């Protein structure tokens, strides 16, 4: 296991040709501002384990980009301390099988979390996300956006729990899956366990094929069906770029999304 203290920006490239299992323990320094970008690439099945402790009053962003051309399993655990702000983004446009198991524990008061995922898949992708508000005045927003291409399969299981005594906490989840055609399979399971009264909680889920009225509207302006569909799919995936504060990286991700969607829609 690689143990790192993080207080600035770091980038890691994990080559699955060399590492079948990669384990990182990240200690985010209190009151620091930092960002970590992990890119997974290669052609072999692999596993990535992350154990992240976000120190009090810190501002931390983690972006995981999956370029691996084989199955990838990610297991990540976060401990969020007082008044820390954490952004976790997963971008997976590869089309290979992937599983992301995430546990977010709000250990101390005032911690906040934003999770944003974007996935474009023709394989089998599964998100299992658990947010547990153990402390008061904590805040979570979990936003999953996925497009399931032909013969693809995507499950999103999101559980948000506010324990008794975590007064003033709020927890929100949004899961949206766009199914490309009748061979695309999607499942969304939003779960809220609320054990305290003084809280706010919500979930929103949508699953289905592209909206025919939206497609018509775009076509009425001269876009072909394929161009209109491509624009709508890109729109599904682009929100991930808005949580990346690095403008250059955001533009790179946008270009990659447009390229991958272009490839998928031309198949």
């Amino acid at each position, binding site marked *: 296991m690689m143990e790192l203290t993080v207080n600035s920006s770091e980038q890691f490239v994990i080559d699955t040709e060399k590492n079948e299992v990669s384990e990182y323990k990240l200690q985010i320094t209190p009151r620091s501002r930092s960002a970590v970008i992990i890119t997974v690439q290669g052609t072999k099945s692999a596993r990535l384990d992350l154990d992240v402790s976000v120190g009090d009053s810190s501002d931390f962003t983690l972006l995981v980009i999956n370029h691996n051309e084989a199955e990838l399993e990610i297991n990540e655990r976060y401990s969020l301390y007082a008044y820390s702000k954490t952004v976790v983004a997963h971008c997976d446009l590869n089309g290979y099988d992937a599983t992301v198991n995430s546990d977010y524990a709000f250990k101390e008061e005032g911690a906040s979390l934003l999770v944003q995922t974007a996935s474009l898949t023709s394989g089998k992708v599964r998100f299992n996300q658990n947010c547990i508000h153990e402390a008061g005045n904590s805040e979570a927003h979990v936003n999953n956006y996925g497009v399931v291409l032909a013969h693809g399969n995507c499950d999103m299981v999101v559980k948000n729990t506010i324990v008794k005594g975590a007064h*003033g906490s*709020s927890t929100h989840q949004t899961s949206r899956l766009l199914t490309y055609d009748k061979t695309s399979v999607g499942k969304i399971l939003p779960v809220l366990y609320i054990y305290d009264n003084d*809280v*706010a*909680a*919500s979930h929103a889920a949508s699953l289905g094929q592209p909206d025919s009225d939206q497609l018509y*509207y775009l076509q*009425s302006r*001269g876009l072909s069906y394929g161009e209109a569909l491509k624009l*709508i799919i890109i729109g599904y995936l682009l929100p991930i770029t808005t949580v990346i504060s690095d403008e250059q990286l955001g533009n790179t991700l946008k270009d990659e999304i447009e390229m991958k969607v272009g490839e998928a829609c031309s198949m």
Partner: protein
Amino acid sequence: MPTLEIKNLHVSVENKEILKGVDLTVNAGEIHALMGPNGNGKSTLLLTIMGHPKYTVTEGSITFDGNDVLQMSVDQRSKAGLFIAMQNPQEVPGVTNSDFLKAAVNAHREQPIRLFEFIRLLDKTIDEVGMKSDMAHRFLNEGFSGGEKKRNEIIQMKLLKPQLAMLDELDSGLDVDALKIVADNVLDVYKQTNMGMIIVSHYERFYELIRPTHAHVLVNGRIVKSGDHELARKIDAEGYEWLIQEQNLVLEEEEPVRRAVSLGTCAANVRGKGE
């Protein structure tokens, strides 16, 4: 300049006939006001011309510049020069206005527009319709007020410069000042292109600004009376009752609207209630 020619058009939705033999000819430079009580087929006519898949043409023809419109896909109709400003423009989350508008402009060109040329053109057009410059970066119509959506339709019309524009209750949701701005911009495109227009509105104020050359009243799926701007003025002043009596018509009842039901969303907010 092209002519839109509609002959004996019959249109159904879910096996219910809405249009029952509409004849209408719109030449370049002509502005046709299309009036009628709610639910009598005005929007159906415009959306059918623009190829909305919900509407089935069971009889009749539509040609534009001699070409069979009914054989064209929706995007081909747009490229042929037809444009509809929608009564309820769609919201498309995630798609920015600028990306959408650039794609629409490029769909009408042989060569893609250069980025800087597009930005200049878009900034100028946004300014002309009195919208804030940040609209370019907002998602398409998402969170727009009713008036902003209507102005955005005009931005699209100005960028695409159609040969025949159909405006479906473009004036609804606009205050007096916004109405004037929208009308001025519509007339600006009209002067530049000499396009034909079909305008659906319930309000004489908009017609006073646009000055239609023709007016028609659609009742029970048929055009029952045609005239000029004076007809629009008379209807604004006196309503449809005189016409219904004159023509010995019986208004068909509208079917109740079926509301969509959304599943899968819930929210809890019990903050402040205490244990």
